[in-house]
């Protein structure tokens, strides 16, 4: 097992990794930017190294600085968390070259999954259902127009290198394609340095269903069931749950088997998430795979009892998974609300000094946060300040617990999305489990 892990991240996920390391008896190294000098992940790591100024490019995205910090501190592994460099083939390879383990999939898998168009093709060959679309990214608008002939409108243009909604355009009819092609391509080029696009059938108001997968280096690949993350605003998930309110046990196991098969086919290792759309006719279509830990992993942990981060570390250290597919059971229901430092009305970020910070605990409540009274939410990074996760024997109890926890949450000094979450929880459609990625359209600014 590793002796010392460097955590190349900040905020609640850096703390989450510290929790796992402490439980496993592994020392930790925090890296931090000047903006995070007083952050909890710095305080609670066994060792800490300032790697740069606040701007992410200069610190948390600075591969040479992180590799150097790992070497100087004698860390034998790097956990990248989510976001930042978590899917960076460059970091994974650089670490490997220095004899430091990267706690994530092998570089080849990272690169495959990072190219959305390639990943789509690979998963299709591996037997996952995909939406009708282009196999190879069209090289010109004319090729795109031609490819669109064979598909049905509405279509959606997506960036091959993409994610997070950038370089994405819905195309409802042929006349819109040329303009969409140009603007999406420019956006993708600006965001990812790669303007390639691909076309796919567009599904109206689908559900977002994703599978948590774990794979070790001993041939074992398991899934921990699905999460439903249909409550999104501009492709940013707001509320996630496990299990989905609509999947049957049979659907869960059938799709799960396809997913683990596909993961095995591409040599997947460590933790990963396979995302699907579910249309109104209960058909699933592979969207993309996230080759890393997800923000919303706690809902799966609460329902299965499996500690995803500890499994990541075990697998990266060459150990087998501590669970088998047969040993995994799903108990009750869990929901996560992402509490962001932002206006619940305008969605504008609201960084600053947190004067009061209190989220009640009690039965079924898990809180993952790096915030506390008198901390500062710096303006340079993600606005996530806390994840509140509620578990209950069924969805109704989980929702009731989330409601009471959020209604008794007191955060002052910054604005947060708590009031928005309470509005969502009170929507009859939400209560009834009538979810879709179009759910948030009903809210102003959504």
């Amino acid at each position, binding site marked *: 097992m590793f002796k010392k892990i460097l955590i190349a991240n900040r905020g609640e996920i850096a703390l989450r990794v510290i929790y796992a390391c402490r439980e496993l008896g592994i020392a930790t190294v925090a890296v931090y930017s*000047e903006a995070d000098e*007083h952050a*909890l992940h*710095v*305080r*609670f*790591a066994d060792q*800490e*190294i*300032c*790697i*740069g*100024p606040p701007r992410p490019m200069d*610190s948390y995205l600075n591969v*040479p*600085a992180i*590799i*150097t*910090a790992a*070497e*100087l501190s004698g860390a034998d592994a790097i956990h990248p968390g989510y976001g930042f460099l978590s899917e960076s083939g460059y970091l994974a390879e*650089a670490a490997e070259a220095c004899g430091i383990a990267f706690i994530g999939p092998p570089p080849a898998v990272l690169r495959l999954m990072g190219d959305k168009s390639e990943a789509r093709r690979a998963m299709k060959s591996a037997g996952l259902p995909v939406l009708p679309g282009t196999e190879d990214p069209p090289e010109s608008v004319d090729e795109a127009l031609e490819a669109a002939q064979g598909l049905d409108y509405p279509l959606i243009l997506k960036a091959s290198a993409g994610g997070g909604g950038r370089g994405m355009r819905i195309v409802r009819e042929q006349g819109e394609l040329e303009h969409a092609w140009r603007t999406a391509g420019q956006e993708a080029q600006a965001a990812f340095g790669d303007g390639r696009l691909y076309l796919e059938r567009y599904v109206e108001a689908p559900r977002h269903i994703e599978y948590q997968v774990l794979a070790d280096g001993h041939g074992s690949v398991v899934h921990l069931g699905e999460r439903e993350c249909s409550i999104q605003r501009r492709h940013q998930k707001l509320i996630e749950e496990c299990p989905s309110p609509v999947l049957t046990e049979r659907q869960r196991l059938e799709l799960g088997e396809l997913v683990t098969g596909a993961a095995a086919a591409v040599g997947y290792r460590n933790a990963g998430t396979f995302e699907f759309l579910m249309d109104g006719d209960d058909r699933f279509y592979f969207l993309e795979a996230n080759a890393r830990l997800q923000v919303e992993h706690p809902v799966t942990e609460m329902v299965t009892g499996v500690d995803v981060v500890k499994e990541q570390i075990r697998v990266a250290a060459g150990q087998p998974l501590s669970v088998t597919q047969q040993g995994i059971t799903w108990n009750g229901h869990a929901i996560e609300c992402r509490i962001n430092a932002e206006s619940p009305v305008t969605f504008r970020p609201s960084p600053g*000094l947190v*004067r009061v910070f209190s989220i009640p605990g009690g039965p079924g409540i898990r809180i993952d946060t790096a915030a*506390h009274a*008198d*901390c500062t939410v710096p303006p340079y990074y993600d606005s996530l300040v806390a994840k509140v996760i509620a578990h209950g024997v069924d969805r109704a109890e989980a929702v009731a617990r989330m409601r009471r926890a959020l209604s008794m949450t007191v955060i002052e000094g910054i604005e947060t999305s708590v009031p928005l979450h309470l509005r969502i929880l009170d929507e009859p459609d939400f209560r009834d489990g009538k979810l879709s990625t179009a759910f948030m359209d009903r809210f102003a600014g959504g």
Partner: protein
Amino acid sequence: MTDFDDIERLLDLMDARGLEELEVEREGLRVRFRKPGRSAAPLAAPPAPAPPAAEAAQRGDEADAGEAGLAIIKSPIVGTFYRSPEPGADPFVEVGSTVGKGQVVCIIEAMKLMNEIDADQDGEVVTIFVEDGQPVQYGESLFAVRPA
């Protein structure tokens, strides 16, 4: 109250020095001010998570240097500090050396790359904060230079 101007000056002082509490007592007048504290504090009194002794000492030096009006050359990257271009060679500079703007004063090694660090103004090296071969963090003080 003829002392009013004095009190305002004390308050200016309090602002300027970032004081939380101020108490002055003298013949016929006693004044005590306190500002709401806590706001800038982290979770607790910064817990000093075991900084290397060298670093702690250096911070003290740095403060001294600051007061004496010296310029500080800080490390722009994480890495290993080397005072000479290669093992066995003479150091780039010593305490007492005169340096010119742009002159190499040390090397920081990061990922097998040797990064030359330059003086950013003319002057005389008065302190070298880090031992040869020691790791340095981003922003760590390397040299104090008395500007020419």
